[in-house]
């Protein structure tokens, strides 16, 4: 048996970054203990329901999982060991960390849980960038965190954000330079995307504070590079990271040979995974579903043993094609037809033959991939797939 992938969501953060729209909650949340309890319950219940399968990969994301105290990590570890088979060991266990909240004791606790890979939310390596993004850690926190992870034999992934207010091409080059000099195995580069509608996650913060966030975002959006500027920054990353020996294997992800993120590849290859925790998504038996983003609602749902919310609008053909196209390997229409039938192939082929995608995709035999320009205009391609 090949096993499944598991995503575990830990929403707690020391402070809220003003651009963030993940499912987050304050570290001091009154619901923290109950949340961790509910999480353990969900893990136990889902593990049993699935017949205690083997876990191929685990990804502990957030939020800021790294701020959990060692006893909390130990509790999660115990739940995981009880809920799922751990032999053979998962091939990859990633935990996300904020450079400021990492210390040796915490790292050791995660090491106990079997972590093999640390994903560092650096975002920028310059003081100006961190300030522009409203982040609380300092540039020097990042090399220290990388050092600590390395000393425990962990692989290191670094997340960067480009297109922050006032960022020049030169500054972006410097961020990339500094990051590459740290020698990470994996790099993710995301454009700063500012959602101007309030999301469900703000409800987890006392007083919500959407007004202030909105003001921050509107001001930031006004002095962000325009989309042409963002396209240039993206092109710089493509060119520069290729030269530095990183493979641009997904729209926003680059990796050294042999270091692509196996867990995230499960998503892109349309594989099966279970997601536990608030706002976590799952894809099991061809069904997409998720848990509510609100902590209170999540805890309530687990205590009542309520099922996940099913995504009724899911269309396996469209979803699989969009996900596959995100990867540099693209979509192989011959294999797609074998797996999903000739009609599905026909639908996808027709969409990818539309005049609107000329220059955005490349065909070679039965394989279709996004061109470099197609990657930054990917939605122009994907929208053709929507019926």
């Amino acid at each position, binding site marked *: 048996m090949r096993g499944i992938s598991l995503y575990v969501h830990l929403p707690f953060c020391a402070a809220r970054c003003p651009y963030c729209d993940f499912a987050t909650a304050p570290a001091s949340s009154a619901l923290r203990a109950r949340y961790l309890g509910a999480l353990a319950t969900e893990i136990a219940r889902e593990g049993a329901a699935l017949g205690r399968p083997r876990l191929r990969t685990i990804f502990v*994301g957030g939020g800021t999982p790294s701020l959990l105290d060692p006893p909390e990590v130990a509790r999660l570890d115990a739940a995981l060991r009880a809920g799922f088979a751990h032999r053979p060991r998962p091939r990859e266990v990633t935990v996300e960390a904020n450079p400021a909240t990492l210390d040796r004791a915490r790292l050791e606790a995660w090491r106990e849980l079997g972590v093999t890979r640390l994903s560092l939310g650096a975002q920028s390596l310059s003081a100006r960038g961190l300030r522009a993004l409203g982040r609380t850690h300092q540039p020097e926190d990042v090399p220290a965190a990388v050092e600590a992870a390395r000393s425990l034999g962990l692989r290191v992934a670094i997340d960067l954000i480009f297109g922050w207010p006032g960022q020049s091409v030169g500054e972006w080059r410097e961020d990339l330079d500094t990051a590459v000099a740290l020698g990470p195995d994996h790099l993710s580069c995301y454009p700063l995307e500012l959602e101007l509608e309030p999301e469900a996650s703000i409800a987890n913060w006392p007083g919500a504070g959407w007004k202030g966030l909105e003001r921050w975002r509107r001001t930031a959006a006004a002095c962000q590079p325009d989309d*042409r500027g963002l396209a240039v920054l993206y092109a710089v990353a493509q060119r520069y990271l290729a030269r530095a020996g990183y493979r641009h294997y*997904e729209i926003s992800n680059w990796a050294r040979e042999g270091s692509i993120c196996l867990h995230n590849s499960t998503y892109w290859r349309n594989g099966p995974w279970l997601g536990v925790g608030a*706002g976590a998504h799952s894809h099991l038996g061809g069904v997409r579903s*998720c848990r509510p983003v609100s902590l209170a609602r999540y805890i309530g749902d687990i205590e009542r043993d309520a099922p996940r919310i099913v995504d009724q609008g899911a269309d396996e053909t469209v979803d699989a094609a969009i996900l596959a196209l995100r990867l540099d390997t693209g979509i192989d229409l011959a294999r797609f037809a074998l797996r999903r039938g000739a009609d599905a192939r026909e639908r996808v082929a027709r969409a990818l033959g539309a005049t609107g995608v000329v220059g955005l995709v490349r065909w070679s035999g039965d394989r279709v991939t996004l061109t470099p320009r197609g990657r930054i*205009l990917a939605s122009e391609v994907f*929208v053709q797939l929507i019926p």
Partner: protein
Amino acid sequence: MSDAQQRIRNFCVIAHVDHGKTTLSDRLLELTGTVAAREMHPLMLDSMPLEREKGITIKARAVRMSWTYADEAYELNLIDTPGHVDFNYEVSRSLAACEGAVLLVDVSQGIEAQTLANAYLAVEQGLEIIPVINKVDLPNIDLELVREDLRSTLGFKDEEILLASGKTGLGVRAILDAVVTRVPPPRGDGAAPLRALIFDSHYDQYRGVVAHVRVVDGSVAVGDRTLLMATDKASELLELGIFAPDARPRDRLLTGEVGYLATGLKTVLDCRVGDTVTSADAPAREPLHGYRPAKPMVFAGIYPTRSDDHPALRDALEKLKLNDASLVYEPETSQALGFGFRCGFLGLLHMEIVQERLEREYDLDIIATAPSVEYQVLTTRGAEVPIDNPAMLPDPTTTAEVREPWMKVTIIVPSQHVGPVMELAQGKRATLVEMTYVDPTRAMLRYDMPLSEVIVDFYDQLKSRSQGYASLDYEMAGYRAADVVLLEVLVAGVPVDALSTIVHRERAAYAGRNLVTKLRGLIPRQQFDVPIQAAIGGKIVSRETVKALRKNVLAKCYGGDITRKRKLLEKQKAGKKRMKMVGQVEIPQEAFLAVLRADEDAP
């Protein structure tokens, strides 16, 4: 006259928009027991979803009711009519099927422009009018002022005027009694050959074309062979009946009665509103008077966004025409938009409703061009050519004169708002013909004004300048010379005929600049730079560029959440469906409509 015929009363309810016709009809249906209390719901006769949504009546509805007066049972045929100015034609058709009209006046508003327009129509057709002051349940009302309105503008006597509330049901009994005592029974010869007037029609999937008729002479029964006199189409009647308010089959309809005939005919051309139904075996010699055909006021092209939908659009228009006699259309081809139809509408509301019905009831994605009036062009060779599509305006060198339609406009407005209203009218090229007073507090202004000015926001601006109190009615006055030119638009270097518009010469350059600025804001960014230019007589007068789209990607795929991404893509896709590919450029519906307001300031 037969006994049965003596006890029939045909009447309609007419009023200005929103004065409570449909609400009062609810009370009539209730008190006469036509609709059981448990089946009753508010605005029963506004059954189209669009009517409910917009809160206005769009289509007239006929209903059969029974009422006992002085121990005699009467058959009452009610027609609830729309009040909006666009649907005047619907009212005049309904009036032709009636001997009486209940004229409602909202006590809080008094007589308004369509109160007069509809009352005059009823007087012209020789109907008995029962004036009713409605909504008397409202607080702080001035009955005397409204009575004064009715006395001075329409010549009613105080004793004739009834009071009612469609909300509380007050006065409803008296209205029904008045219908029996004041409205004459239908004239008509029961022994003569059948003549029934088609005053409306609708299409039913099972019954085919269903004609709404008023039997004028003779009678008609199931199984009769009938003949439509104008189109000479014969058919055997499979079903006939009455509306109560749903269709209820009957064996026959007698002289003076109102009901429906399921003709079994399939196409609109065979069954025209205004035609006369007679018996195929014993036909009448002369058809009934009929109606003047509806005169469309504004014209627009309607095109499917996907060219494969053209047959479906033709089908839908044909069906819609069966339910809406005033819609006219003919095939048209646009270089930019492909195959479509030039449609004529009674007004902008009518156009909006047709568009929405095509989209909702027939599930079509369509693009409508900006509405235009019909110009008349006198060529240098002496021919007179009607132009209802700006792009077809002939070359100035072959044109002797262009004429545009003018309207007689009636505005009723409280005296304190007369100033702002006059100012507005002046800016719209209107000339004041007359100013009188309907009562001590309200003035009636009569203007002559170009129709092209009436259709652009005039009503909205009138409302805002009078704090909502002004009302408006208009009718065709005739054609007058106009000094106009064709303003053309080029998108990505290609002339787009559907964005052409006819504007006044002295405002043309200004309009060109404005339009181009607006279009820049409305045409979404494409994957390349899109220049937009305005030209007059082949000369470019202004230019702007829609910058190319450089980034459109949902970079994060966090935790495998594809649901949110798909939703965003679906939104983008829905937007695309409302756009038309013109050459390489996708142009949204709003861009075509922006042309209408070309010479207003861009925001």
